Protein backbone atom coordinates (compact mmCIF):
# COMPACT_ATOMS: atom_id res chain seq x y z
CA UNK A 1 0.00 0.00 0.00
CA UNK A 2 1.41 3.38 -0.88
CA UNK A 3 1.21 6.03 1.81
CA UNK A 4 -1.59 8.01 0.22
CA UNK A 5 -3.94 5.02 0.11
CA UNK A 6 -4.39 5.44 3.84
CA UNK A 7 -7.89 6.50 4.87
CA UNK A 8 -8.96 7.88 8.21
CA UNK A 9 -11.96 5.73 9.01
CA UNK A 10 -13.85 4.79 12.13
CA UNK A 11 -12.05 2.05 14.05
CA UNK A 12 -11.29 0.04 15.93
CA UNK A 13 -8.19 0.29 13.77
CA UNK A 14 -5.94 -1.82 15.94
CA UNK A 15 -3.48 -2.06 18.77
CA UNK A 16 -1.52 1.10 17.90
CA UNK A 17 -2.78 2.94 14.82
CA UNK A 18 -0.36 5.42 13.25
CA UNK A 19 -0.70 9.19 13.24
CA UNK A 20 -2.47 9.93 9.96
CA UNK A 21 0.10 12.66 9.23
CA UNK A 22 2.80 10.00 9.01
CA UNK A 23 0.72 8.08 6.45
CA UNK A 24 0.66 10.86 3.90
CA UNK A 25 -2.50 12.60 5.08
CA UNK A 26 -1.98 16.37 4.93
CA UNK A 27 -3.94 19.22 6.42
CA UNK A 28 -5.98 21.41 4.07
CA UNK A 29 -5.20 25.02 3.23
CA UNK A 30 -7.59 27.77 4.30
CA UNK A 31 -11.10 27.14 3.00
CA UNK A 32 -10.51 23.41 2.87
CA UNK A 33 -11.36 20.56 5.19
CA UNK A 34 -10.61 16.87 5.61
CA UNK A 35 -13.11 14.08 5.16
CA UNK A 36 -11.66 10.67 5.97
CA UNK A 37 -8.21 11.86 4.98
CA UNK A 38 -9.15 13.57 1.72
CA UNK A 39 -8.93 17.32 1.29
CA UNK A 40 -12.35 18.73 0.36
CA UNK A 41 -14.11 22.09 0.42
CA UNK A 42 -15.13 23.27 3.87
CA UNK A 43 -18.77 23.54 2.83
CA UNK A 44 -18.79 19.93 1.61
CA UNK A 45 -17.31 18.79 4.91
CA UNK A 46 -20.05 20.66 6.78
CA UNK A 47 -22.67 18.74 4.80
CA UNK A 48 -20.97 15.50 5.74
CA UNK A 49 -20.84 16.48 9.41
CA UNK A 50 -24.56 17.23 9.37
CA UNK A 51 -25.29 13.83 7.79
CA UNK A 52 -23.18 11.98 10.30
CA UNK A 53 -24.70 13.77 13.29
CA UNK A 54 -28.28 13.38 12.15
CA UNK A 55 -27.84 9.70 11.38
CA UNK A 56 -26.09 8.94 14.64
CA UNK A 57 -27.65 6.89 17.40
CA UNK A 58 -25.84 8.68 20.19
CA UNK A 59 -23.93 11.76 19.06
CA UNK A 60 -21.99 13.63 21.74
CA UNK A 61 -20.16 16.97 21.72
CA UNK A 62 -16.95 17.28 23.72
CA UNK A 63 -16.27 20.96 24.45
CA UNK A 64 -12.76 21.50 25.79
CA UNK A 65 -11.27 24.10 28.13
CA UNK A 66 -11.08 26.78 25.45
CA UNK A 67 -14.90 26.81 25.35
CA UNK A 68 -15.70 25.91 28.96
CA UNK A 69 -14.31 29.07 30.53
CA UNK A 70 -15.09 32.66 29.65
CA UNK A 71 -11.37 33.40 29.52
CA UNK A 72 -11.37 35.82 26.61
CA UNK A 73 -13.72 37.79 24.47
CA UNK A 74 -15.83 35.83 22.08
CA UNK A 75 -15.79 32.56 24.00
CA UNK A 76 -19.27 32.99 25.47
CA UNK A 77 -20.72 33.53 21.99
CA UNK A 78 -18.95 30.49 20.60
CA UNK A 79 -20.06 28.36 23.53
CA UNK A 80 -23.63 29.44 22.92
CA UNK A 81 -23.31 28.63 19.22
CA UNK A 82 -21.86 25.21 19.98
CA UNK A 83 -24.66 24.45 22.39
CA UNK A 84 -27.22 25.43 19.77
CA UNK A 85 -25.52 23.15 17.29
CA UNK A 86 -25.62 20.24 19.71
CA UNK A 87 -29.30 20.88 20.32
CA UNK A 88 -30.02 21.06 16.60
CA UNK A 89 -28.23 17.76 16.13
CA UNK A 90 -29.96 16.16 19.11
CA UNK A 91 -26.58 15.53 20.68
CA UNK A 92 -25.53 15.31 24.30
CA UNK A 93 -22.65 17.33 25.72
CA UNK A 94 -19.84 15.89 27.82
CA UNK A 95 -17.03 18.31 28.74
CA UNK A 96 -13.26 17.81 28.67
CA UNK A 97 -12.42 20.03 31.66
CA UNK A 98 -8.64 19.61 31.55
CA UNK A 99 -5.83 17.44 30.21
CA UNK A 100 -4.08 16.06 33.31
CA UNK A 101 -4.03 12.33 33.86
CA UNK A 102 -6.69 12.58 36.55
CA UNK A 103 -6.36 10.75 39.85
CA UNK A 104 -7.91 8.47 40.88
CA UNK A 105 -10.16 8.23 37.81
CA UNK A 106 -12.65 10.12 35.72
CA UNK A 107 -16.38 9.63 35.89
CA UNK A 108 -17.09 8.61 32.29
CA UNK A 109 -20.75 9.58 32.67
CA UNK A 110 -19.91 13.24 32.89
CA UNK A 111 -16.39 13.89 31.58
CA UNK A 112 -13.85 12.89 28.97
CA UNK A 113 -10.05 12.98 29.30
CA UNK A 114 -7.62 13.12 26.36
CA UNK A 115 -5.37 10.43 27.84
CA UNK A 116 -8.12 7.81 27.73
CA UNK A 117 -11.06 9.17 25.75
CA UNK A 118 -12.06 5.62 24.84
CA UNK A 119 -13.39 5.05 28.38
CA UNK A 120 -16.04 7.75 27.99
CA UNK A 121 -16.91 6.61 24.47
CA UNK A 122 -17.31 2.96 25.47
CA UNK A 123 -19.18 3.76 28.66
CA UNK A 124 -21.75 5.96 26.90
CA UNK A 125 -21.85 3.97 23.64
CA UNK A 126 -21.08 7.11 21.64
CA UNK A 127 -21.11 6.49 17.88
CA UNK A 128 -20.36 10.03 16.64
CA UNK A 129 -18.47 12.66 18.57
CA UNK A 130 -17.49 16.29 18.02
CA UNK A 131 -14.34 17.89 19.45
CA UNK A 132 -14.37 21.66 19.93
CA UNK A 133 -12.29 23.97 22.09
CA UNK A 134 -9.59 21.41 22.77
CA UNK A 135 -5.93 22.42 22.33
CA UNK A 136 -4.66 20.81 19.13
CA UNK A 137 -2.03 18.57 20.70
CA UNK A 138 -4.46 17.02 23.13
CA UNK A 139 -7.14 16.65 20.49
CA UNK A 140 -4.72 14.68 18.33
CA UNK A 141 -3.59 12.51 21.23
CA UNK A 142 -7.23 11.68 21.95
CA UNK A 143 -8.38 11.25 18.35
CA UNK A 144 -5.78 8.56 17.67
CA UNK A 145 -6.73 6.63 20.78
CA UNK A 146 -10.40 6.78 19.78
CA UNK A 147 -9.60 5.52 16.27
CA UNK A 148 -7.49 2.75 17.70
CA UNK A 149 -9.91 1.29 20.18
CA UNK A 150 -13.46 2.35 19.38
CA UNK A 151 -15.87 2.48 16.44
CA UNK A 152 -16.77 6.09 17.15
CA UNK A 153 -16.84 8.50 14.20
CA UNK A 154 -14.80 11.58 15.12
CA UNK A 155 -15.41 15.17 14.00
CA UNK A 156 -13.06 18.04 14.91
CA UNK A 157 -14.16 21.68 14.75
CA UNK A 158 -10.73 23.27 14.95
CA UNK A 159 -9.99 26.97 15.33
CA UNK A 160 -6.49 26.44 13.99
CA UNK A 161 -5.13 24.21 11.20
CA UNK A 162 -7.29 21.12 11.66
CA UNK A 163 -6.73 17.46 12.56
CA UNK A 164 -5.71 14.61 10.26
CA UNK A 165 -6.62 12.12 12.96
CA UNK A 166 -10.31 13.02 12.95
CA UNK A 167 -12.58 11.45 10.35
CA UNK A 168 -13.91 14.89 9.49
CA UNK A 169 -11.99 18.03 10.37
CA UNK A 170 -12.77 21.67 9.73
CA UNK A 171 -10.12 24.37 10.18
CA UNK A 172 -10.27 28.05 11.20
CA UNK A 173 -13.65 27.51 12.83
CA UNK A 174 -14.98 30.69 14.42
CA UNK A 175 -18.40 31.88 15.46
CA UNK A 176 -19.74 32.30 11.93
CA UNK A 177 -18.61 28.81 10.90
CA UNK A 178 -20.30 27.33 13.95
CA UNK A 179 -23.51 29.15 13.06
CA UNK A 180 -23.24 28.13 9.41
CA UNK A 181 -22.87 24.48 10.36
CA UNK A 182 -25.85 24.71 12.71
CA UNK A 183 -27.93 26.11 9.85
CA UNK A 184 -26.93 23.22 7.61
CA UNK A 185 -27.86 20.74 10.32
CA UNK A 186 -31.22 22.41 10.82
CA UNK A 187 -31.95 22.46 7.08
CA UNK A 188 -31.07 18.81 6.67
CA UNK A 189 -33.23 17.93 9.63
CA UNK A 190 -36.14 19.81 8.11
CA UNK A 191 -35.58 18.13 4.77
CA UNK A 192 -35.66 14.72 6.36
CA UNK A 193 -39.10 15.30 7.91
Amino acid at each position, binding site marked *: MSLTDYRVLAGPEGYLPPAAATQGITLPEKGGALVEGKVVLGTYAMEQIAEKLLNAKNPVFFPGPLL*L*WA*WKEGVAEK*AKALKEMAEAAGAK*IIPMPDYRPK*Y*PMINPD*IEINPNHPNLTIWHNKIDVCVFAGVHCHYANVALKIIRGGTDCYTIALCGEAGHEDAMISLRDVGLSELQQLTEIIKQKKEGAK
Partner: protein
Amino acid sequence: MSNKIITPVEEFAHLLPQEYKDLVAKGPFFESKGVEDLGTFKEIIEEHPHCAGCGVALGVRLASAALPAPEDTLIIGTPGCSFFGLAQTAVNYATSAFGNQNAVASGLKRMLQVRYPDRHKDVVVLVGDGGIADIGLDLTLHSWFRREKITTIMVDNEVYGNTGGQESGMSSQGKILNMAPTGKKFPKVPVFEIAKISGCVYAVRVTVASPRKVGQAVRNAIILAREVGPTYVQIYTPCPTNLKFPPDQTIKVARDAEKDYYAYEEFITPEAEEYLKKSR
Protein backbone atom coordinates in the same frame (compact mmCIF):
# COMPACT_ATOMS: atom_id res chain seq x y z
CA MET B 1 -4.71 36.05 36.47
CA SER B 2 -7.99 37.49 35.58
CA ASN B 3 -10.88 35.75 37.28
CA LYS B 4 -12.17 35.02 33.80
CA ILE B 5 -10.14 31.83 33.57
CA ILE B 6 -12.10 30.40 36.51
CA THR B 7 -15.42 31.72 35.30
CA PRO B 8 -17.37 28.99 33.53
CA VAL B 9 -19.30 29.92 30.41
CA GLU B 10 -22.98 29.94 31.23
CA GLU B 11 -23.93 27.30 28.69
CA PHE B 12 -21.70 24.61 30.11
CA ALA B 13 -21.37 25.57 33.80
CA HIS B 14 -23.84 22.94 34.94
CA LEU B 15 -21.91 20.23 33.08
CA LEU B 16 -18.61 20.73 34.92
CA PRO B 17 -17.55 18.00 37.35
CA GLN B 18 -18.27 18.77 41.00
CA GLU B 19 -14.61 19.50 41.82
CA TYR B 20 -14.66 22.39 39.35
CA LYS B 21 -17.94 23.71 40.68
CA ASP B 22 -16.37 23.62 44.15
CA LEU B 23 -13.19 25.36 42.98
CA VAL B 24 -15.26 28.12 41.43
CA ALA B 25 -17.57 28.49 44.42
CA LYS B 26 -15.15 28.04 47.32
CA GLY B 27 -11.64 27.74 45.99
CA PRO B 28 -8.70 29.77 47.31
CA PHE B 29 -8.50 32.07 44.29
CA PHE B 30 -8.60 35.80 44.98
CA GLU B 31 -9.23 35.16 48.66
CA SER B 32 -6.58 35.02 51.29
CA LYS B 33 -6.57 31.45 52.53
CA GLY B 34 -3.94 29.77 54.62
CA VAL B 35 -3.03 26.64 56.53
CA GLU B 36 -5.28 27.72 59.41
CA ASP B 37 -8.27 27.76 57.02
CA LEU B 38 -7.83 24.13 55.92
CA GLY B 39 -11.17 22.38 55.98
CA THR B 40 -13.10 25.53 55.16
CA PHE B 41 -12.23 25.93 51.48
CA LYS B 42 -11.73 23.82 48.37
CA GLU B 43 -8.03 23.03 48.20
CA ILE B 44 -6.10 23.09 44.94
CA ILE B 45 -4.99 19.51 45.53
CA GLU B 46 -7.12 16.89 47.18
CA GLU B 47 -7.01 13.43 45.74
CA HIS B 48 -3.56 12.04 45.10
CA PRO B 49 -1.80 8.70 44.85
CA HIS B 50 0.77 9.15 47.65
CA CYS B 51 1.25 6.32 50.15
CA ALA B 52 -0.68 6.33 53.41
CA GLY B 53 0.99 8.58 55.95
CA CYS B 54 3.15 10.25 53.32
CA GLY B 55 5.03 13.21 54.75
CA VAL B 56 5.65 14.62 51.28
CA ALA B 57 1.90 14.65 50.55
CA LEU B 58 1.35 16.57 53.78
CA GLY B 59 4.17 18.99 53.01
CA VAL B 60 2.80 19.62 49.53
CA ARG B 61 -0.72 20.09 50.94
CA LEU B 62 0.47 22.62 53.50
CA ALA B 63 2.57 24.51 50.99
CA SER B 64 -0.32 24.62 48.52
CA ALA B 65 -2.70 25.90 51.14
CA ALA B 66 -0.24 28.64 52.07
CA LEU B 67 0.23 30.13 48.59
CA PRO B 68 -0.48 33.84 48.97
CA ALA B 69 -1.92 34.16 45.45
CA PRO B 70 -2.74 30.78 43.87
CA GLU B 71 -4.47 32.60 40.99
CA ASP B 72 -1.04 33.88 39.92
CA THR B 73 1.12 30.97 41.01
CA LEU B 74 3.03 28.64 38.71
CA ILE B 75 4.66 25.60 40.24
CA ILE B 76 7.70 23.89 38.80
CA GLY B 77 8.37 20.35 39.94
CA THR B 78 10.63 17.50 39.03
CA PRO B 79 10.18 13.75 38.74
CA GLY B 80 9.93 11.98 42.09
CA CYS B 81 7.32 11.45 44.79
CA SER B 82 6.67 15.18 45.06
CA PHE B 83 4.89 15.33 41.72
CA PHE B 84 2.17 12.79 42.41
CA GLY B 85 -0.07 15.22 44.20
CA LEU B 86 1.19 18.22 42.30
CA ALA B 87 0.10 16.68 39.01
CA GLN B 88 -3.45 17.20 40.27
CA THR B 89 -2.90 20.83 41.28
CA ALA B 90 -5.47 23.38 40.18
CA VAL B 91 -2.80 25.85 39.04
CA ASN B 92 -0.27 25.69 36.18
CA TYR B 93 2.33 23.04 36.95
CA ALA B 94 5.22 21.58 34.97
CA THR B 95 8.03 19.12 35.32
CA SER B 96 10.49 18.58 32.52
CA ALA B 97 13.72 16.76 33.32
CA PHE B 98 14.95 15.47 36.69
CA GLY B 99 16.80 18.16 38.62
CA ASN B 100 16.36 21.07 36.21
CA GLN B 101 13.55 22.76 38.14
CA ASN B 102 15.40 25.90 39.23
CA ALA B 103 16.69 26.52 35.71
CA VAL B 104 13.21 26.04 34.22
CA ALA B 105 11.80 28.35 36.89
CA SER B 106 14.44 30.98 36.10
CA GLY B 107 13.47 31.12 32.44
CA LEU B 108 9.76 31.08 33.20
CA LYS B 109 9.95 33.78 35.89
CA ARG B 110 11.99 36.15 33.77
CA MET B 111 9.62 35.80 30.85
CA LEU B 112 6.53 36.30 32.97
CA GLN B 113 8.15 39.50 34.25
CA VAL B 114 8.63 40.57 30.64
CA ARG B 115 5.07 39.69 29.68
CA TYR B 116 3.46 41.10 32.82
CA PRO B 117 5.79 43.86 34.04
CA ASP B 118 3.21 45.35 36.38
CA ARG B 119 2.07 42.13 38.01
CA HIS B 120 3.46 39.54 40.36
CA LYS B 121 3.57 36.03 38.99
CA ASP B 122 4.77 33.72 41.75
CA VAL B 123 7.04 31.00 40.38
CA VAL B 124 7.49 28.32 43.02
CA VAL B 125 9.79 25.32 42.83
CA LEU B 126 8.34 22.50 44.90
CA VAL B 127 10.38 19.31 44.75
CA GLY B 128 12.08 16.64 46.78
CA ASP B 129 15.51 16.34 48.30
CA GLY B 130 17.03 14.33 45.46
CA GLY B 131 15.98 16.93 42.91
CA ILE B 132 17.40 19.85 44.87
CA ALA B 133 20.35 18.51 46.85
CA ASP B 134 21.74 15.91 44.44
CA ILE B 135 21.02 15.96 40.75
CA GLY B 136 19.87 19.59 40.66
CA LEU B 137 22.21 21.12 43.25
CA ASP B 138 24.23 23.20 40.81
CA LEU B 139 21.10 24.54 39.13
CA THR B 140 19.56 25.33 42.53
CA LEU B 141 22.64 27.21 43.69
CA HIS B 142 23.14 29.10 40.47
CA SER B 143 19.55 30.31 40.54
CA TRP B 144 20.31 31.70 43.99
CA PHE B 145 23.66 33.17 42.93
CA ARG B 146 21.90 34.91 40.05
CA ARG B 147 19.29 36.22 42.51
CA GLU B 148 16.41 34.76 40.53
CA LYS B 149 13.14 35.90 42.06
CA ILE B 150 11.76 32.44 42.74
CA THR B 151 10.86 30.44 45.83
CA THR B 152 12.44 27.03 46.26
CA ILE B 153 10.67 24.58 48.56
CA MET B 154 12.25 21.25 49.40
CA VAL B 155 10.02 18.48 50.71
CA ASP B 156 12.80 16.53 52.39
CA ASN B 157 11.93 12.89 52.95
CA GLU B 158 15.61 11.98 53.25
CA VAL B 159 15.38 9.31 50.59
CA TYR B 160 14.66 8.64 46.91
CA GLY B 161 11.10 7.49 47.47
CA ASN B 162 9.69 7.09 43.99
CA THR B 163 12.55 4.94 42.75
CA GLY B 164 12.36 2.63 45.77
CA GLY B 165 14.17 3.88 48.83
CA GLN B 166 17.69 4.77 47.77
CA GLU B 167 20.13 6.93 49.73
CA SER B 168 19.96 10.63 48.91
CA GLY B 169 22.36 13.38 49.85
CA MET B 170 19.78 14.45 52.43
CA SER B 171 19.63 11.02 54.11
CA SER B 172 21.00 10.93 57.64
CA GLN B 173 24.51 9.65 58.13
CA GLY B 174 24.60 5.96 58.99
CA LYS B 175 21.15 5.22 57.57
CA ILE B 176 21.00 1.87 55.79
CA LEU B 177 19.15 2.30 52.53
CA ASN B 178 19.21 0.92 49.02
CA MET B 179 22.50 1.92 47.41
CA ALA B 180 23.85 2.45 50.94
CA PRO B 181 23.96 -1.20 51.99
CA THR B 182 26.41 -0.53 54.83
CA GLY B 183 24.93 2.79 55.83
CA LYS B 184 25.37 6.36 54.51
CA LYS B 185 28.95 7.54 54.95
CA PHE B 186 28.50 11.31 55.15
CA PRO B 187 26.14 13.81 56.78
CA LYS B 188 23.10 15.50 55.23
CA VAL B 189 23.99 17.96 52.49
CA PRO B 190 23.79 21.34 54.25
CA VAL B 191 21.47 22.99 51.74
CA PHE B 192 19.88 25.18 54.40
CA GLU B 193 23.30 26.50 55.49
CA ILE B 194 24.34 26.98 51.88
CA ALA B 195 21.15 28.94 51.15
CA LYS B 196 22.16 31.58 53.72
CA ILE B 197 25.41 32.38 51.96
CA SER B 198 24.28 31.89 48.37
CA GLY B 199 21.90 34.75 47.82
CA CYS B 200 18.69 33.67 49.53
CA VAL B 201 17.10 36.55 51.41
CA TYR B 202 14.96 34.25 53.49
CA ALA B 203 15.36 30.60 54.44
CA VAL B 204 13.43 28.43 56.85
CA ARG B 205 13.99 24.91 58.10
CA VAL B 206 10.80 23.39 59.45
CA THR B 207 8.92 20.09 59.71
CA VAL B 208 5.38 18.98 58.95
CA ALA B 209 4.85 18.59 62.69
CA SER B 210 4.53 22.40 62.76
CA PRO B 211 1.96 23.12 60.07
CA ARG B 212 1.40 26.77 60.98
CA LYS B 213 5.10 27.45 60.78
CA VAL B 214 5.20 25.74 57.38
CA GLY B 215 2.36 27.94 56.20
CA GLN B 216 3.98 31.11 57.50
CA ALA B 217 7.34 30.23 55.98
CA VAL B 218 5.90 29.45 52.55
CA ARG B 219 3.85 32.61 52.55
CA ASN B 220 6.75 34.83 53.60
CA ALA B 221 9.06 33.13 51.14
CA ILE B 222 6.77 33.72 48.19
CA ILE B 223 6.02 37.33 49.07
CA LEU B 224 9.72 38.08 49.50
CA ALA B 225 10.63 36.42 46.23
CA ARG B 226 8.43 38.88 44.37
CA GLU B 227 10.73 41.81 44.89
CA VAL B 228 13.56 41.10 47.30
CA GLY B 229 15.29 37.93 46.09
CA PRO B 230 15.38 34.16 46.10
CA THR B 231 13.94 32.31 49.09
CA TYR B 232 14.17 28.77 50.41
CA VAL B 233 11.97 26.63 52.62
CA GLN B 234 13.12 23.18 53.66
CA ILE B 235 10.35 21.03 55.10
CA TYR B 236 11.04 17.68 56.75
CA THR B 237 8.47 15.29 55.32
CA PRO B 238 9.28 11.81 56.63
CA CYS B 239 8.60 8.74 54.49
CA PRO B 240 6.96 5.80 56.29
CA THR B 241 7.27 3.53 53.29
CA ASN B 242 11.02 3.73 52.85
CA LEU B 243 12.15 4.78 56.33
CA LYS B 244 10.07 1.86 57.65
CA PHE B 245 7.87 3.35 60.32
CA PRO B 246 4.08 2.92 60.68
CA PRO B 247 2.13 5.42 58.54
CA ASP B 248 0.29 6.85 61.54
CA GLN B 249 3.62 7.91 63.08
CA THR B 250 4.64 10.52 60.49
CA ILE B 251 3.95 13.52 62.69
CA LYS B 252 5.65 11.88 65.64
CA VAL B 253 8.75 11.13 63.60
CA ALA B 254 8.81 14.73 62.41
CA ARG B 255 8.27 16.07 65.93
CA ASP B 256 11.07 13.91 67.29
CA ALA B 257 13.35 15.18 64.52
CA GLU B 258 12.45 18.77 65.44
CA LYS B 259 13.77 18.13 68.96
CA ASP B 260 16.87 16.46 67.61
CA TYR B 261 18.47 17.51 64.31
CA TYR B 262 15.64 19.28 62.48
CA ALA B 263 15.00 22.25 64.80
CA TYR B 264 13.04 25.18 63.41
CA GLU B 265 15.32 27.89 62.13
CA GLU B 266 14.65 31.07 60.23
CA PHE B 267 17.19 33.14 58.35
CA ILE B 268 16.22 36.55 57.04
CA THR B 269 18.24 39.47 55.70
CA PRO B 270 17.58 42.92 57.14
CA GLU B 271 16.25 44.06 53.78
CA ALA B 272 13.80 41.16 53.67
CA GLU B 273 12.70 41.80 57.22
CA GLU B 274 12.02 45.43 56.38
CA TYR B 275 10.04 44.42 53.30
CA LEU B 276 7.92 41.94 55.25
CA LYS B 277 7.12 44.54 57.88
CA LYS B 278 5.98 46.94 55.20
CA SER B 279 3.87 44.38 53.42
CA ARG B 280 1.98 43.40 56.57
